């Protein structure tokens, strides 16, 4: 579908979301809010070691405990055939998934599941875990990505040979893959540059930090039919991964989507669901399995820590001639970090003729990395945008002007291949430059930082059904879990096409048996891709209603138009409302239902620029965010409040990543801060209001011009804050997070260096 400018009456307004009342009254049911009669409670036994061989597991005493109904270990999970399941922006290796769900001969991280129990109460299940006897042979571990790449590093997998290098290595290593993106001639580019700056950066692993821990209720019946209630970013993905793990048929497993309490990419895989099904199958009763916060932090996918070097050259007039970047990502226990996105997108806001960007995917002894909002891009942008800030200062250029001079525009060839259509990079930069924030005065120890970010966004498979009810209301059926207001945005697009108010469209997110396959809620794709499916399904319903009206009037269908929620006679003044048509549906051909099932292409990339003011407390090293403004191209904001919400929330996550969040391990590789007290995410008193300025450069591939908006906002904050700290103090921070002890140490080191002259 292509974009056409239209007079809009619903799209672009701010109605109350359809699921709102349920969510402000406590009615909304999240994963662990379900119970079933006869339900058992499950618990998971996890390794206390970072890297071990599993010599033996004895479950006899646990099984003998009264009230225990099932115990499972890795031996009960048949290794599935090799395969890859696509999960939004990640790809899931099914054999690695099986080994991650329940350790087999080896444990790869602190928190790796070893066994699971179902019992008549949570207390008995917990007690049973203590009766399982596991004999471990503890092995040396490695967590730091640079250390894991060394020849003498402890080896996680003895069958892992680096992909992407010629010739194929003879020895296994922790380097799963080398990837490369390049163009032009970087030697020539550096020769043309008047100034070249090369810097190195590190970041720690961080967690998505959704507030709802994973939870599931599974019910496996004797005839092999099963149901799963869980919160996820895609009920179809959960179904497909579960049936692959258990060797089931797709029609035998119904996955019912609960409300989802945050995901940010982290709920695009399974941790508990197959275990709950196995326990339910073994016990013959429904089983509930939930994670504690400690389990969430120890055993679900954090986002990669990284080590990066960026070398960028520019001419005196501000033209960037070349960039050479090396990016190493922690993959966690199994290969598959999002380093590819860091490689492809770190330079993507710009049009740079000579590029060499290399990435390494490196296994280490932490949980398997999983997607986190614009996976990989914030790391790369941290390195790239910080060096750009240094270059702008050396060139004595305004940092926004410097970025604008090198911006990718429509027709620029992207680093990852395709040529850009209309994109809003320049528009974001000029909006930032003209914003009052950019001109506001700063006080002592205060500084301002600028950074831009890019996210590609995806399309993918979506289906929608538009059911026309007798009273003229609409039941909109769709299959993508609503994390941030997509029920509202989808219902609004349906209402816009019909010419009715959004409140007359009631959206439902249904189970895996009630609609065709949908890809996950991820990749900022739902309002774009499912939006196209909804528009097409609505147009299908409108076409049917015009046909019914033509029948009722006994005229040709091409003599019937559609306007303001009614069929209109083109050569006359008769009209029929939706309810008038629907009430006669039985006599004009049966009930009216529009449908569409698509694979959407042409998701428009989203560009964004952030302005950040900080104040640095020189006595404590604490950074205070004084003011924060985000500028982002949304293509078209269907519900501007929820677009602003994405921009504000993404910025806040980036601020947390920059200032405090990090995985901290002890000498044995155990996670030391597996709780919200010590894994310190931003709270309300840490942040100012976050101004969100929506830019609208329509995406030509969506009927209303929509681009995905969810992910780009987390990309710039790391560098924007680093650049603001430099502006405030003259000290460059290149190792995340900028927690008070580290800031204080950097300030003191800079003070000493200055004193020593």
């Amino acid at each position, binding site marked *: 579908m292509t974009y056409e400018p239209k007079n809009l009456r619903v799209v672009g307004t701010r109605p109350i979301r359809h699921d709102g009342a349920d969510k402000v009254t406590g009615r909304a049911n999240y994963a662990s809010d379900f119970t079933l009669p006869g339900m058992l409670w499950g618990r998971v036994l996890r390794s206390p070691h970072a890297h071990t061989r599993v010599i033996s597991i004895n479950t006899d005493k646990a099984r003998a405990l009264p009230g225990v109904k099932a115990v499972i270990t890795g031996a009960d999970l048949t290794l599935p055939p090799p395969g890859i399941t696509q999960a939004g922006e990640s790809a899931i290796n099914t054999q690695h998934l099986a080994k991650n769900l329940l350790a087999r001969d080896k444990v790869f991280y602190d928190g790796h599941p070893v066994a699971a129990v179902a019992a008549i109460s949570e207390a008995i299940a917990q007690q049973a875990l203590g009766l399982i006897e596991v004999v471990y042979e503890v092995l040396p571990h490695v967590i730091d990505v640079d250390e894991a790449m060394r020849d003498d590093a402890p080896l996680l997998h003895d069958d892992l040979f680096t992909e992407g290098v010629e010739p194929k290595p003879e020895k296994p290593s922790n380097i799963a893959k080398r990837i490369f993106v390049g163009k032009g001639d970087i030697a020539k580019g550096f020769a043309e540059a008047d100034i070249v700056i090369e810097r190195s950066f590190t970041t720690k692993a961080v967690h998505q930090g959704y507030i709802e821990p994973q939870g599931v209720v599974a019910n496996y019946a004797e005839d092999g039919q099963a149901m799963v209630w869980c919160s996820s970013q895609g009920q179809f993905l959960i179904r497909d991964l579960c049936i692959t793990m258990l060797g089931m048929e797709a029609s035998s497993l119904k996955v019912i989507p609960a409300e989802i309490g945050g995901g940010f990419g982290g709920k695009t895989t399974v941790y508990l669901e197959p275990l709950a099904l196995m326990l339910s199958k073994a016990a013959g009763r429904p089983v509930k399995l939930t994670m504690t*916060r400690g389990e969430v932090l120890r055993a679900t996918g954090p986002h990669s820590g990284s080590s990066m070097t960026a070398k960028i050259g520019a001419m005196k007039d501000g033209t960037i001639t070349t960039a050479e970047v090396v990016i190493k990502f922690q993959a966690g226990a199994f290969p598959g970090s999002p380093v590819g996105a860091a490689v492809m997108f770190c330079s993507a806001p710009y049009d740079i003729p000579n590029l060499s960007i290399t990435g390494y995917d490196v296994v280490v002894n932490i949980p398997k990395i999983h997607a986190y909002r614009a996976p990989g891009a914030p790391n790369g942008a941290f390195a790239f945008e910080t060096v750009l800030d240094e270059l702008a200062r050396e060139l004595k250029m305004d940092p926004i002007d410097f970025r604008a001079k090198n911006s990718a525009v429509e027709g620029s060839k992207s680093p990852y291949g395709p040529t850009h259509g209309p994109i809003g990079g320049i528009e974001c930069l000029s909006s930032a430059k003209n914003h009052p924030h950019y001109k506001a005065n700063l006080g002592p120890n205060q500084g301002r930082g600028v950074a831009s970010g890019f996210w590609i966004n995806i399309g993918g498979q979506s289906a929608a059904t538009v059911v026309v009810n007798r009273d003229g209301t609409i039941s909109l059926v769709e299959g993508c879990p609503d994390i941030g207001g997509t029920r509202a945005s989808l219902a609004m697009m349906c209402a816009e096409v019909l010419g009715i108010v959004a409140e007359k469209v009631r959206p439902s997110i249904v189970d895996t048996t009630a609609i065709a396959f949908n890809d996950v809620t991820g990749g900022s794709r739902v309002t774009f891709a499912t939006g196209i499916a909804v528009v097409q399904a609505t147009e299908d319903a409108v076409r049917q209603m015009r046909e019914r009206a033509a029948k009722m009037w006994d005229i040709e269908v091409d003599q019937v138009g559609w306007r303001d929620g009614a069929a209109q006679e083109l050569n006359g003044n008769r009209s029929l409302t939706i309810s008038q048509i629907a009430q006669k549906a039985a006599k004009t051909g049966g009930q009216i239902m529009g449908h569409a099932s698509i694979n959407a292409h042409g998701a428009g990339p989203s560009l964004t620029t952030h302005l950040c003011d900080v104040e640095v407390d020189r006595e404590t090293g604490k950074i205070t965010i004084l003011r924060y403004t985000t500028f982002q191209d949304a293509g078209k904001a269907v519900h501007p409040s929820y677009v602003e919400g994405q921009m504000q929330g993404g910025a806040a996550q980036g601020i947390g990543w920059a200032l405090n969040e990090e995985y901290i391990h002890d000498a044995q590789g155990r996670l030391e801060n597996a709780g919200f007290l010590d894994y310190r995410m931003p709270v309300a008193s840490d942040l100012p209001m976050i101004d969100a300025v929506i830019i609208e450069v329509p995406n030509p591939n969506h009927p209303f011009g929509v681009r995905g908006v969810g992910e780009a906002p987390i990309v710039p904050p790391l560098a924007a804050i680093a650049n603001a700290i430099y502006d405030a103090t003259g000290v460059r921070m290149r190792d995340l997070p900028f927690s008070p002890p580290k800031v204080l140490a950097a300030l003191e080191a800079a003070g000493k260096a200055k004193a020593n002259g």
Partner: protein
Amino acid sequence: MAKSHVSTTVNGDPVEFLCDAPETMLDVLRNTLGLTGTKEGCGTGDCGACSIIVDGRVVCGCLMLAVEATGKQVTTIEGIGAPDRLHPVQQAFLEDAALQCGFCTPGFIVAAKALLDRNPDPSETEIRYWLAGNLCRCTGYDKIVRAVQHAAAEMKGQPA
């Protein structure tokens, strides 16, 4: 060990339940009384998703033993607002789009109501520090703070 018998008041109704000594008020609300609007995000008092009001004070349900409810007045999210009318804080959350996933929302609404009950005219800073015990990962707090300001104005009879 024998269970303890507890008599308490939840959302204005007399309630009795049996519980084990280690069970928290959050466990009993969710698993015994079926009041699942109160959420568990951490179980350690760090996220505020289980915020409830006990004798006028905001408490993390996960840090309160269920036996401590004896003789107390407990208010949960289910006890806020009336069937014919949402509480102004709930209404403001809807109008100002102050929720995304909605999981932290009951805790925020309980905490914000308790704030406005004792301070009808809080400053932005007072709102931010009062709500600092409630984690939200989706919104960046901007729209939540604005919704509480909006509700405060509504409750004083002023147009926001």
